[in-house]
């Protein structure tokens, strides 16, 4: 090291400088590796290897408690698509998502638009609508259980005052998914509202002025011509997040219905939880997890695709 430095001293200062730079770069590279090493290690141990393991498990008949297992190819997947519970679970998750997503997105947008255009009590309303997001869902689900109680619940008491016989919200298979969806909407509107508020403030004021010049007088016209198109990326993003969160519904199901009555609220994560952690059929539950993960990845890819195609003005 020392000799080369001296040998290079004569020809030109440039080479020494370059060598010093290379050495510095090498040192920097080494330090960078050291700083990133714990993170890299943990990403491998806690994310990559477990994900890989789920794929491998899904090809086996592994059950916790039995140490020997065989590779059974795609048998788990074949079994899945003949499994009534799993199919019901997929259907219920889809129905739940189909109810929660549009309502939480559009109510979130509506509240954001109202708050944006109303100067009075802005901070107060933002706080109120956001409160459910910061609250413990398991606890609030318990409150909803009381509110929706068929005999002593305030909701049915109010309905009976209007002369309507309220349903057994969480206890009947025809209303249970709707009831869970109402809780899901209540819980997620505030989150969407804040994202929309951020999107709204990013719209340049001049656009509204320009629209007015072009003859867009009413607030609906302004919304249709300026707000809605400009909010495009936000709306897409909020929708994706809402779908992903709805597909991951678990807390309310575990707290309130445990998949019942009669599998009417059996949802994907609940089924995976039951198979994997209660019945300990790791191999079979892994196959379900792979399908769950595939859904999430497809959703994200769709979002990236649409974003790529549509958004050029960021």
């Amino acid at each position: 090291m020392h000799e080369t430095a001296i040998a290079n001293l004569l020809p030109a200062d440039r080479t020494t400088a370059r060598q010093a730079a290379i050495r510095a770069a090498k040192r920097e590279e080494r330090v960078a590796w050291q700083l990133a090493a714990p993170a890299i290690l943990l990403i491998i141990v806690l994310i990559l290897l477990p994900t890989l393991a789920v794929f491998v498990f899904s090809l086996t008949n592994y059950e916790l408690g039995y140490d020997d297992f065989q590779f059974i190819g795609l048998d788990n997947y074949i079994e899945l698509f003949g499994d009534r519970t799993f199919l019901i679970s997929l259907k219920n998750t889809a129905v739940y998502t189909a109810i929660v997503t549009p309502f939480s997105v559009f109510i979130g947008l509506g509240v954001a638009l109202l708050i944006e255009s109303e100067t009075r009590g802005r901070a107060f309303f933002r706080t109120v609508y956001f409160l459910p997001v910061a609250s413990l869902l398991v606890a609030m689900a318990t409150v909803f259980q009381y509110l929706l109680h068929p005999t002593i619940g305030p909701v049915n008491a109010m309905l009976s005052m209007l002369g309507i016989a309220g349903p057994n919200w969480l206890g009947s298979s025809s209303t249970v998914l709707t009831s869970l969806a109402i809780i899901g909407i209540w819980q997620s509107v505030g989150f969407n509202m804040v994202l929309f508020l951020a999107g709204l403030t990013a719209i340049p004021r001049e656009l509204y002025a320009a629209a007015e010049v072009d003859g867009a007088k009413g607030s609906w016209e302004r919304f249709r011509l300026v707000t809605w198109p400009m909010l495009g990326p936000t709306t897409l993003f909020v929708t994706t997040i809402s779908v992903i969160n709805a597909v991951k519904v678990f807390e309310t199901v575990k707290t309130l219905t445990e998949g019942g009555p009669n599998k009417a609220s059996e949802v994907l994560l609940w089924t995976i939880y039951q198979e994997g952690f209660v019945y300990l059929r790791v191999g079979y539950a892994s196959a379900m997890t792979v399908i769950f993960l595939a859904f999430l990845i497809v959703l994200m890819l769709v979002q990236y695709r649409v974003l790529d195609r549509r958004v050029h003005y960021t």
Partner: protein
Amino acid sequence: MRNTAFFSMRNLRLAMLSAGALVFLAPYIWMISTAAKSREEIFSSSLTLLPQHWALWENLAKALTRVPMGQLLWNGLVVCGLIFFFQVVIAIPCAYAMAKLKFRAARTMMTLVMLGLLIPIHATALPIYVALNKAGMLNSYFALSAPFFISVFGIFLFLQFFRAMPDDLIAAARLDGMSELAIVNRVIVPNAWPAVTAFAIFSVVAHWNDLFWPLIVITGSERATPPLGLLFFRAAEAGDDYGALMAATLIITLPLVAAFLLAQRRFIEGITLTGLKG
């Protein structure tokens, strides 16, 4: 004419917002009201909000004695604290190396991070559970917190933040002869405070409220976190003593809600950080 129409439009907006707010607040109002009512009164299913006979203290006492409430809240605190500490200590140096050092693996790292963002705990839970079970480490603070020590989202967030920091700051520190680790500690972290607080709120809210993972690795109430403890309490009470149940939900919901009301702006920033994920 226009003026009056304008005013009625405004008032309509306010009325709509207020009506919605009432619906959103209703569960909280009923929670407090029911926590203050006696069992008999709850079962009479009257629609009055104010109890005729105050039973708030009895209900709170039931909630506090039948469930180790202090232990639950402490467990929640320990788990959230451990998770946040490790997440930050591991994510910040990594993000710094990716943002500010000549690091050829930075692109590969970025791919890893984006991949990690796609994979939730629900997907990795089975193998991690199997491993913890094999190692005999279930039912511990370690089992509750270790799977979350790495937050790829944290890396992503800090990376964005560090990229916006001026290079001169770091160059000056290097001229002063500081080591890279010292630069992270004494230059980067103090300047990244807004990102750290926002991330803290994001992380604490997520893990304080999480039910899925604690449900999997914890069986007794000794290491239970608040959501899990509430489930145990419901099971023990057979779910029909709503007064005590609402008192328990009140105690368990209060810490985060109080924190939220005190530091709203930061909270909203922190929680909606998930919004940056895409």
